């Protein structure tokens, strides 16, 4: 067992260590997707790239939004905007568990002192029409990651199978650094000329977005935008693929998928506003899933999503 590196001093140091760890293990270090998503899985680098036969290895931070989880910045563990660290490798390598444990060591978790466990947890995303088997990973009884072997995405069997790792960054960092309230966590090095805590950056936004998500957002507009995104997604997928200017056949899988992401986030906002009844809820989820499936179908027809 190698000597564990020193405990990181800040949130960003944990991110930087993960970035450099996975870069050194051959992953393309991508940047966050530039849209509002509920989880790192929504990034097309995961959803779409887990389809088809082309090998793939990517790692990235993804800012994620869960409007219903807003607590005005007061809850020590809950945020409506937080960060996930996502690793996706296709086909899943045989030593993925070892690689993952190496990443924990890299951020200062001494594997000889802590109790790491892989506890059954099957993952399912009804909005993406996706599921996989795997575990939640426990460190001393605390869930620090989600570890999944994708079996299906957008209704398509994953062949080969991708291995997906998702780290809840705030929670993991708080545990590693021994911080009790997320807002008290150092974001940059506490020795910096201008030390910033997580709360210095996000307390006010958590307040504002909580107010927005629960009370402020215009539901009539959200409903309208949902419809529009749904229509646009379907329109783009039905658009003539033969491009007369380039002479190429171009299927707009990614632009259409952007509209799916939009619809999904709009649904989450409507849900937070409490204007979707229990029965309607299933119907909305089904509509988003239908879009995700169509995008997956389209992506499979493109070069990046092909079988060879």
């Amino acid at each position: 067992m190698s000597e564990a590196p020193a405990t990181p001093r800040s949130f960003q140091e944990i991110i930087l260590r993960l970035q450099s760890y996975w870069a050194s293990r051959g992953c393309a270090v991508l940047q966050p997707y530039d849209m509002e998503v509920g989880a790192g899985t929504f990034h097309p680098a995961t959803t779409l790239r887990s389809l088809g036969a082309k090998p793939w290895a990517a790692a990235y931070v993804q800012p994620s939004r869960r409007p219903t989880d807003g607590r005005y910045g007061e809850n020590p563990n809950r945020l409506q905007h937080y960060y996930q660290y996502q690793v996706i490798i296709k086909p899943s390598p045989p030593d993925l568990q070892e690689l993952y444990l190496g990443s924990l060591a890299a951020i200062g978790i001494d594997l000889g002192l802590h109790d790491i466990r892989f506890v059954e947890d099957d993952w399912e995303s009804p909005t993406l029409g996706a599921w996989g088997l795997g575990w939640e990973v426990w460190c001393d009884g605390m869930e620090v990651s989600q570890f999944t072997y994708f079996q299906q995405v957008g209704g398509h069997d994953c062949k080969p199978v991708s291995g997906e790792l998702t780290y809840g960054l705030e929670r993991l960092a708080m545990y590693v650094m021994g911080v009790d309230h997320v807002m008290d966590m150092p974001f940059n090095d506490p020795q910096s000329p201008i030390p910033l805590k997580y709360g210095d950056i996000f307390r006010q936004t958590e307040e504002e977005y909580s107010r927005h998500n629960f009370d402020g957002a215009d539901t009539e507009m959200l409903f309208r935008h949902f419809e529009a995104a749904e229509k646009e997604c379907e329109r783009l997928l039905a658009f003539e693929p033969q491009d007369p200017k380039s002479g190429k056949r171009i299927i707009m899988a990614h632009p259409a998928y952007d509209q799916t992401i939009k619809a999904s986030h709009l649904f989450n906002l409507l849900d937070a506003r409490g204007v979707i009844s229990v029965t309607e809820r299933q119907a909305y989820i089904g509509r988003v899933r239908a879009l995700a499936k169509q995008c997956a179908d389209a992506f499979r027809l493109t070069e990046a999503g092909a079988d060879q």
Partner: protein
Amino acid sequence: MPDLLIELFSEEIPARMQARAREDLRKLVTDGLVEAGLTYASAGAFSTPRRLVLSVEGLTAESRPVREERKGPSVLAPAQAVEGFLRSTGLTLDQLERRADKKGETFYAVVEKPGRAASAIVAEVLEAVIRNFPWPKSMRWGAGSLRWVRPLQSILCLLSDETGAHVVPLTVDGIVSGNVTEGHRFMGMGRFVVTGFDDYAVKLKRAKVVLDSAEREAAIWQGAQNLAFAAGMEVVPDTGLLTEVAGLVEWPVPLMGRIADQFLSLPPEVLQTSMKEHQKFFSVKNPKTGRIEGFVTVANIEAADGGEVILKGNQKVLAARLSDAKFFWENDLRVAKSGMGEWVEGLKAVTFHNKLGSQADRIERIAALAREIAPLVGADADDAAHAAKLAKLDLRSAMVGEFPELQGVMGRYYALEAGEKASVADAARDHWRPKGESDGVPSEPVSVAVALADKIDTLTGFWAIDEKPTGSKDPFALRRAALGVIRLVLGNGVRIRLAQKVSYFVVQLGFAAKILDQARSKDVGTDRYSAALHETGSSLAPDLLSFFHDRLKVYLKDQGVRHDIIDACLAMPGNDDLTLLVKRATALSETLKTEDGANLLQGFKRANNILSQAEAKDGVEYSFGADPKFAETDEERALFAALDTAEATITPAMANEDFGTAMAAMAALRAPIDAFFTAVQVNSDNQIVRRNRLNLLHRIRAVCSGVADLTRIEG
């Protein structure tokens, strides 16, 4: 005799699947070996989170040679027939034997299959078992196509005999079998070679893996108890949790911690559930205070610091969880103290079933029915109705939202907090019972009334919307609800006419939502609506009653009551009163066990057969009353006297539903009836005597038919 060792090493197998998987491995492999012609002395299977292991001892080194013989066509048969026979056997003409018999010469195909080496058979069987393993859920990984519960990493397969250990060669989806395995993930120190089961078990232990789950369970339980005793506390037993935790670790290291003081005021059920469900902790009780004050967690590693960091981490997670629980508890208490009005409102918005209305609608119905049932179970009607209105309010509480398994338990706490009396509060907890076959039934009258009302409402409702159980499908657990009613009724000796209650219920409460909708949509008048309800009530009740009867038969059969005895009692009036029904069945069952009882049955049947035949033939019913003055023999006169005596006992006994006494009096008729049939010819030439004797037989039938319809008894 070689021994076989198989280890299927994988990434972490879900704890809940391990016991079944090791048993499947044992059965499938040994069955396969036996089917292929091998025998073995013994086989044992083991599991840890990362491996399934099978050890087979005393395996035969090769399978028995097999000689198969098939008779073919005559040697004189047309060429086509012979060719067909050759094709089906795969032999050539000169390989066939010719045997002479009476009809001439016939072709025979004789195929000698030599014995096969165990190694080849094991390889074949194991590959098939791996490829078709019955995991409840399996997956693919990487670029392969094999399915396993989680990625399968290596296969160890060894046959060992006096000459040493030999790897059984096989390759499954790129995984090549070998003689190498590894120990604990963090304490194991690499891969190692093994030579057989004993060597394997010893080396595994050195590599910090306890192979046998029973041994891990014992170590956990012993370790946990030692820790608790040392602190003057005791561990709360939980065998389900013990098995689960033993499936999460290869090297169990129990650690004990204390629950912070600020959480000790939480109800013990909340502490226990939160710790068990979220953290897989055992609860530790302080016998002096009777409270849950500590926990035992089981780590999978001997940490360098003795587990201090691990314990601290676990304690921190627990504190976060219990802070949530405390927040829920305090919020809920606030609602409870203010009378729970918030929850009453909330349940209006919760759909129970889209054809059966909201939870609030349902509670109204249950309350009305509980009021009706209350006098039958000795409960105060107002209390029962009130308890029913409170019993499900905790479904809206934050705590039950987080831990659904605490429904009822929390309801009781909240009702007490709201100032309700104990019997009403207890109903919140106990009206859910019996929750399963091993759960007892409540006996407190208010709880019984609400529990019955709840279950009858559920059954009636789903019957009304035609959502009955079919085959193995019972999504609304209606069989369990019916069994619950049966156990509540019988366990408390409740006298309730179920069919009448169901009809009443449908009519009185306008229950059948389907009918309600139809009536509304067609805009029919109140009279028509009311008529429709009556119709539904009366057509639904018999069907539901026969469902109850079916469940009752299953239940009584489990208690050792014969099905024909149940049928005989079901044929009696008032059969929707289950307590009455069971009283009949018990008395009949007991009587038939006695010699007199069994013989009485024969006498009764004889009397009944003769009488029925005569009645059919003569087209009359012989029920005019027999007169002793036409009796010709002493045996006849004795039977008259015996029937008088028996009736004198039976009539009051029946009035008191004392079926045991009534049956005993009937059984006492056995001797006079036997004597009568021995001495007397019923079908006398004298028509007056014959009629009188038939009327006497009728008396036997009448006297013996009060408890059950004896004609339905077999034998």
